[in-house]
Structure formats: structure tokens, C-alpha cells
């Protein structure tokens, strides 16, 4: 859509991607699951064109046909890994329901302003053919699509990977072996190093009902990263992160396909783990960011930040992270990945009470999911994590719903500032307060594209 000069979808390089036209609309997941409102989750289309009279408004809502999916993360059918294939187009969003296990294929090309359901991959078919449940991360991989699943059909760890073709037929399991892996969650691959890395949340039966701190001590939550031989489709090395890496969630490689550097946010330890391949060819790791727990008058122990997401700008210069319970978003310059420099910080919501109201809207929750524009200048941030966890930590979200804010990012000197002209209040939705989660742009975004 954005780039049809040469070949397939996406961009020739990360640098080319940063030159793409500015995003005009966003697709954001909004959920009613767990809120008490008996309505299906939906995909909201948000107008972000500053020239449009509807700027900062939801202009379309695509309801799923069922109630209770808990839409969570999503991905594109094609990305820059298909750049050399003129037959491929970035025209479908793949949205799994993490609770229901249904996978919705959404046509965003026919009319980008009012996407429609193209196909549903039924939970029963997935369970029957692959014995998987609890879908999470979706990555395009040239002619195929891989989706990580956190559990088997009964919700027990470690789950595995579903392989789809580009017609969205189930081809089976992607991996040849899960090796000794205990848990699954996020993954990213870097083809020039023949490597994939995967992280660990917990079994669906453990995290779906909510978070019990004691279960971390009983090893029901992850603390490892796994290096895979990407071609052989099997794990070859485990990095035991221990107390520094409790609940390692989002994991990203640099966008530069020649770089072996990558990062992971350990949610409960609230640390950033940096990993890379050494000159000797071994995979190494170190902790590069450690967010201190913060005291709170009503809490017996200081509050951990809970870093549920990280994101790397398309030029690999900045790393963004959230502290969902504290309420801040941070920007770090990672030009030297061993020594990140804090360059920006803003507050929105959170339990520390630093910014209970943003642009006139009461925020229940804290910064949680975020998506960065390809040029790195606009960061869109939402507030809901996962319905049961929201209900535990931010019970007011039931009444107030979620919100999306936009942060202007200084890509030259560093720095972040909340844009005062933009806020989407999901608390005022026609069917009642909903909660917003992950965001994607039609032209590709900073968490979708991989270069071969």
C-alpha cells in the first residue's frame, strides 16, 4: 500500500522504512472480556491524521462474532521479509483470542477504514490438529506465518508454535522439538544469524486466572530465554536469568538484519536484559537496565515496575519500556547497547499517583502496550494489560475503561512529551467502557517487520 514501486510488501531496509509516509490510521484491540459487559471484543480503527476532522477519534469498530475471546496481540500476514515477492501484500491482520483460542483473519486492504473479517480459524481445529491453546505472538516468515502458543489444548505449558500458510490453512506445528523449554511467550528471529529467541511467561492455566505472587516461588512463571537453531527448528541454548529475569516477556532483535543484538524486558524483575552473539559465536547476556521498586504508603513491600513491554525504534537507536504499576514510560538511547542512557520519561496513570489525569481523562491503569511510528517520532500507548490482571491491580478500569495517548519523541536529542491534542478515551465507548491493548499500522510498524 505504502510502497508498491518495486516488489513485495514492506521496505527494502529498516532505513527505507523510517522514510515511509506518516501513519494515518491505527488498528487497536479493544476488549470487553472480563469487564462485565456482555459484548464481543473488537478492532478499533483510530484516525491519527492531524489534517482530518476525526483526528484522535475511533472511526470504526469491527466486532468479533463471539464473546470472550480476549484479543491480545496481533500480526501482519506479510512484512519486509516478503519484500522480494511481488505476489505478496500486507493486507490481513491476524488476531488470536488468547482465551478462546479462535484466530481471526481481518481484511484491511479492501477498505482500510472499515476492516472486515475474512476468515476464522476455529479453536477446535487448532486443538485437533496441533494440540495447542493460548495463542500469543504472530510473525510473518516469508511464505509462512508462525504463531506462538503458551499451552497445549488443556492449558498446560510449554505450548509450541503453529504454522500457517498464506491462505491461513493450518500446516501443523512449526517446531521440531521444544527441547527442555518449560514455558513459551514471545519470540523474534534474525535470519542472517540463523537464530530465533523465545521468552517465558507461564502456562495458560497459571496466568489466565490472575497473578499469585507465591506461584513465582513455586516456579510456575518463567525466568529463561531460549536460543533456537532457526533452520533446524529446535532450541540449542538456554540462558538462565534467575532473579534478574523473573517473567521475561517481550523479546526483540535489532531491526538491522546484520546485528546480533537484542533485548528482553523481564516484567517482574523490571529489568532489561541485553543479549548478543560474541565473536567466538556464543550467545551472551547481561542486565543493562534495573528499575528500582518504589515505596507506597499502603503497600507492605515496595511496588515493582512491571515492565510488560519493550520496543526498539526502527533505526535501533532508542529502546522504549513501560512500568505498568509505577506509571511511567521511558526512552533509552541504546547506541551503545551495553550502556543505555535514559533520555526521556513521562507519567500516565500508575499506582504511584504521579499522573492520575492525562489530557482531561482519568487514567485507570498504567502505560502498557505501545507502538512507535516508523520515523520514530510518535509513540501510541495504551493502558490495559490482561483482563484478569487489570482486575487485580486496577479494579477501577472496569468503570473507567482504557485510554490511548500519544507521546512525541525527540529522535535527535532524545526526550518524550505527551501530545496535548491527542487522547482516545475507551471509557466512553458506545457499549460501555472497554480496554485497549495492542496497536498496528497498515504500512507496517516497529514490532512487525524482519529483514532476511
Amino acid at each position: 500500500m505504502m510502497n508498491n514501486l518495486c516488489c513485495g510488501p514492506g521496505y527494502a531496509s529498516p532505513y527505507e522504512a523510517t522514510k515511509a509516509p506518516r501513519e494515518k490510521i491505527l488498528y487497536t484491540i479493544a476488549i470487553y472480556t472480563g469487564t462485565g459487559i456482555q459484548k464481543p471484543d473488537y478492532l478499533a480503527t483510530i484516525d491519527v491524521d492531524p489534517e482530518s476532522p476525526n483526528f484522535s477519534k475511533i472511526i470504526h469498530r469491527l466486532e468479533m462474532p463471539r464473546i470472550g475471546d480476549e484479543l491480545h496481540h496481533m500480526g501482519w500476514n506479510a512484512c519486509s521479509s516478503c519484500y522480494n515477492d511481488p505476489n505478496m501484500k500486507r493486507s490481513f491482520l491476524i488476531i488470536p483470542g488468547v482465551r478462546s483460542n479462535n484466530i481471526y483473519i481481518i481484511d484491511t486492504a479492501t477498505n482500510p477504514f472499515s476492516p472486515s473479517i475474512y476468515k476464522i480459524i476455529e479453536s477446535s481445529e487448532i486443538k485437533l490438529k496441533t494440540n495447542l491453546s493460548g495463542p500469543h505472538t504472530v510473525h510473518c516468515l516469508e511464505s509462512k506465518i508462525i504463531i506462538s502458543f503458551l499451552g497445549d489444548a488443556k492449558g498446560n505449558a510449554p505450548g509450541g508454535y503453529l504454522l500457517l500458510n498464506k491462505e491461513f490453512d493450518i500446516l501443523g506445528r512449526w517446531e521440531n522439538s521444544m527441547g527442555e523449554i518449560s514455558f513459551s511467550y514471545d519470540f523474534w528471529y534474525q535470519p542472517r544469524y540463523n537464530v530465533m529467541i523465545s521468552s517465558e511467561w507461564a502456562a495458560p492455566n497459571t496466568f489466565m486466572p490472575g497473578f499469585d505472587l507465591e506461584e513465582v516461588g513455586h516456579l510456575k512463571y518463567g525466568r529463561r530465554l531460549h536460543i533456537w537453531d532457526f533452520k533446524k527448528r529446535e532450541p540449542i541454548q538456554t540462558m538462565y536469568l534467575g532473579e534478574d529475569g523473573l517473567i521475561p516477556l517481550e523479546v526483540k532483535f535489532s531491526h538491522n538484519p546484520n546485528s546480533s543484538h537484542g533485548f528482553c524486558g523481564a516484567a517482574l524483575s523490571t529489568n532489561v536484559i541485553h543479549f548478543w552473539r560474541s565473536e567466538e559465536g556464543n550467545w551472551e547476556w547481561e542486565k543493562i537496565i534495573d528499575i528500582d521498586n518504589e515505596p507506597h504508603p499502603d503497600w507492605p513491600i515496595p511496588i515493582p515496575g512491571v515492565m510488560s513491554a519493550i520496543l526498539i525504534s526502527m533505526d535501533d537507536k532508542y529502546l522504549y519500556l513501560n512500568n505498568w504499576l509505577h506509571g511511567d514510560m521511558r526512552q533509552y538511547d541504546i547506541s551503545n547497547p551495553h550502556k543505555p542512557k535514559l533520555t526521556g520519561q513521562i507519567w500516565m496513570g500508575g499506582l504511584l499517583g504521579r499522573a492520575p489525569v492525562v489530557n482531561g481523562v482519568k487514567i485507570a491503569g498504567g502505560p502498557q502496550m505501545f507502538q512507535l511510528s516508523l520515523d520514530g517520532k510518535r509513540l501510541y500507548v495504551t493502558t490495559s494489560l490482561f483482563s484478569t490482571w487489570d482486575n487485580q491491580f486496577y479494579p477501577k478500569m472496569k468503570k473507567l475503561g482504557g485510554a490511548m495517548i500519544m507521546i512525541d519523541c525527540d529522535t535527535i536529542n532524545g526526550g518524550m512529551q505527551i501530545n496535548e491534542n491527542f487522547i482516545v478515551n475507551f471509557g466512553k465507548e458506545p457499549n460501555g467502557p472497554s480496554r485497549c491493548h495492542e496497536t498496528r499500522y497498515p504500512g507496517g510498524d516497529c514490532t512487525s517487520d524482519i529483514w532476511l
Partner: protein
Amino acid sequence: MAVKKIIIANRNNISFKVLGKKPLLEELYSQGLDIPFGCKYGGCITCAAKLLKGKVDQSSQVALNNRQIKNGYVLLCVAQAITDCIFEVGVESHDKLYRNPFLDKLEPHELKADIVNKNIDEI
């Protein structure tokens, strides 16, 4: 097999008749009760309801911890009625289902059954 009467206290005491052979969610949903559900295998607590009176068999559930069970929560997608029952359903019944895990810790016996049983085995 005797028919059981199921009353939903927070839906104007509407009552249903079930055979107790299938999970309550399936029986009640097919008779028109609109309640949230997700996984349908007792793993996600979306369908949790509060049992005010009566007895159920929910032995195949794997998601509730012992505190939640003690507070009367039942996962309707796997629970079968053993006697007549009175329930509160939906998110309105979830006041004691969620707690802040840092402010209010679980005692060892209040954890999920698989952990408690494993600990007992180890002792």
C-alpha cells in the same frame, strides 16, 4: 437421574432445570442464560460464578486457588450440579475473585491444588 433446580440470584432469581450430566455452562447457556466464558476447560476463570447454596463437582478445574474455592467460586464450564444450587453469575459476582497479590498474600494451603498437593507429596 434426578433433575436439579438452578437459581441465579442476581438475575431476578430466574431458575433452570438441569440433569447434572453436562457442565453447567453448557446446560444453562443452551437454555438462554447469557454468561461470559473463554477457554471452556476450567483454565481461565472467565466463567467463574459464586455458589451461594448447593454442591457441585468441579474436580477437573485447574485455575482456581484454594482461597477462591473457599470463597465459593465455581467454574461453570466444567462444574456439574450434584444438588439444587443457587448462584450469582458474571463479573458482578467476582468481588472476591480478584485480589492484589502483593497486598494480600496467600497462605501455603490457599494456593492452587496442584502446588498444595505437590508440597504434601514432598513432605
